């Protein structure tokens, strides 16, 4: 039989964990992906009824928020619950006794859950731009925005799932995170109560949403888009690093 005395590299680890977690979709995760998509579409329809006459900026913000809340639902909320369940069930011991880097394992989980969001992102973006009569010329910004939001939300999801020792706390953290994204993402910044506007600007939860919203207008602010995406990516990387540390701490508890 084959013998290997060194571990795989980080890309091979990420790919193996990613592929292994894809089985989750077949094991019931698919239904949740559908729920996340339907939820965002329903939000779009609801807000269309309320705000179809709003300005282009507000309509773009609503569509952008609905699209990326799919990512938050899956990559933050569901991933947090999944990792908490894996931890509670002793599943981290499996990865902890393999010659792989903790960060690569966390990234494998994150990339897989971010992948689960792709169908919902595409459907919601297509439906949103059509429903709210927004220009689709710069819709390609969705690709980097989805990537950076995937990084950020899945990093937060991993941190929420691996940080608390109780699965219930992880579930609550994931739910609260999703609520925060929906709150900051779907309410246009200029409609927020005064006290919350600075908070929204400071917390990088809505950077990608703002970047995509700007791209869905006739006159995108490209510098702002680039800065917001870069800020979100940096924040996501920090979250992943913290999640990897939480993973190591979870093993030694």
């Amino acid at each position: 039989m084959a013998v290997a005395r060194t571990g795989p590299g980080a890309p091979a680890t990420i790919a193996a964990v990613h592929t292994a977690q894809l089985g989750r979709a077949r094991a019931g995760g698919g239904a949740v992906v559908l729920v996340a998509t339907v939820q965002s579409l329903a939000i779009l329809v609801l807000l269309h009824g309320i705000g179809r006459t709003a300005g282009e900026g507000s309509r773009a913000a609503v569509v952008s928020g609905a699209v990326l809340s799919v990512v938050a639902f899956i990559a933050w909320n569901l991933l947090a619950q999944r990792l908490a369940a894996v931890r509670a069930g002793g599943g981290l011991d499996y990865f902890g006794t393999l010659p792989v880097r903790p960060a690569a394992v966390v990234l494998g989980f994150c990339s897989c859950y971010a992948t689960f969001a792709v169908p919902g992102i595409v459907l919601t973006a297509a439906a949103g731009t059509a429903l709210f009569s927004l220009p689709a010329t710069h819709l390609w910004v969705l690709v980097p925005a989805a990537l950076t939001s995937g990084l950020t939300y899945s990093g937060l999801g991993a941190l929420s799932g691996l940080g608390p020792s109780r699965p219930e706390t992880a579930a609550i953290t994931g739910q609260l995170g999703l609520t925060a994204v929906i709150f900051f993402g779907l309410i246009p910044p200029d409609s927020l109560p005064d006290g919350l506007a600075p908070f929204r600007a400071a917390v990088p939860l809505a950077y990608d949403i703002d970047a995509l919203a700007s791209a869905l207008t006739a006159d995108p602010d490209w510098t702002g888009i680039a800065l917001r995406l870069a800020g979100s990516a940096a924040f996501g990387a920090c979250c992943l690093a913290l999640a990897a540390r939480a993973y190591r701490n979870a093993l030694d508890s």
Partner: protein
Amino acid sequence: MVCCVASRSRTESTASPPPRGDDAHGDDARGDDAHGRAREASRAVCEATALSRSYAGASRPAVDGVTLNVRPGEVFGVLGRNGAGKTTLVRMLVGLLRPDTGRVLLDGTDVTARSAHAAVHLAYLPQRESALADMSVRTALETTGRLRGLPRAAARAQADDLVAELALAAIADDRVGRLSGGQRRLVGVATALAGERPLLVLDEPTTGLDLDARRTVWDALDRRRSGGAAVLLVTHNVLEAETVLDRVLVLHAGRPAALGTPGRLKERFGGLVRLDLAWRDEPAIDPAGLGGTVLRRGRRWTVRLPVAEAQDVLAGILNGPAYAALDDFGLAPPSLEDVLLACDSEEG
């Protein structure tokens, strides 16, 4: 009577790697000279020295001053009651828990501070395994092989080999989470074998397995053992342990209570045999009159006595008025269970 080493103090077991209960050298009839010890240590696949670990809020350490070494080709068992510290000890050996004191060498490499390095030396089968639940059996085996560093094609080929070796063909494409407890355990053993590690640390590997599956597992482990791999087995099943273990460490309340081959540990009973008596009705005899300490579990009595004395006691019962209340009896040489019980009673 008996075997226990913990009463000889922790200092002894920590200062001198094999506790006095360890008959590793004696069994090999090579003495315990310094040269022999050094040679033994250099050959160890796993060598742990004076390991201790406490948890916050606990009244005593979970593991306290445990020293052991596991040699290539050996099946080494860790026995003890629930809460004895077996799982904590094993988690330190495999690098999942950092010891408060002591060190762990795997193949001569100190992995205490760099626990991630432990993973290239060993495979670990924990009691609970949920990480693989969403994969098919074949994918779980292939993924584990890949994560242990095998190229994709080699991992796939090895997964096929393991499916054949452990008779998993009928469930190879089923999701692990949908299997019965025994089947899942068998898959767990198969994943521990992926990557061919020189040390297999298995926590209750045969729990829930039927006789055929258990035999399949031990055949597979025997093949690894013949190839030089060592097995560190944690088990509650003393009957199975009796048949497979080369050496045993008995833990009591986190401390090493006995260490040696099963035969040597049983020898320490000094020729005592176990007399089991099961009563149908309340017997008309005083247990204190049997000549030893009687362990009573309801109407089942167990007493350890020298052979001749046990025969006399039994003859007295069979020929006396107590016979009318006797339901069943047995006279047996000591077992590992007796070793465990004796260590427990000595340790209090």
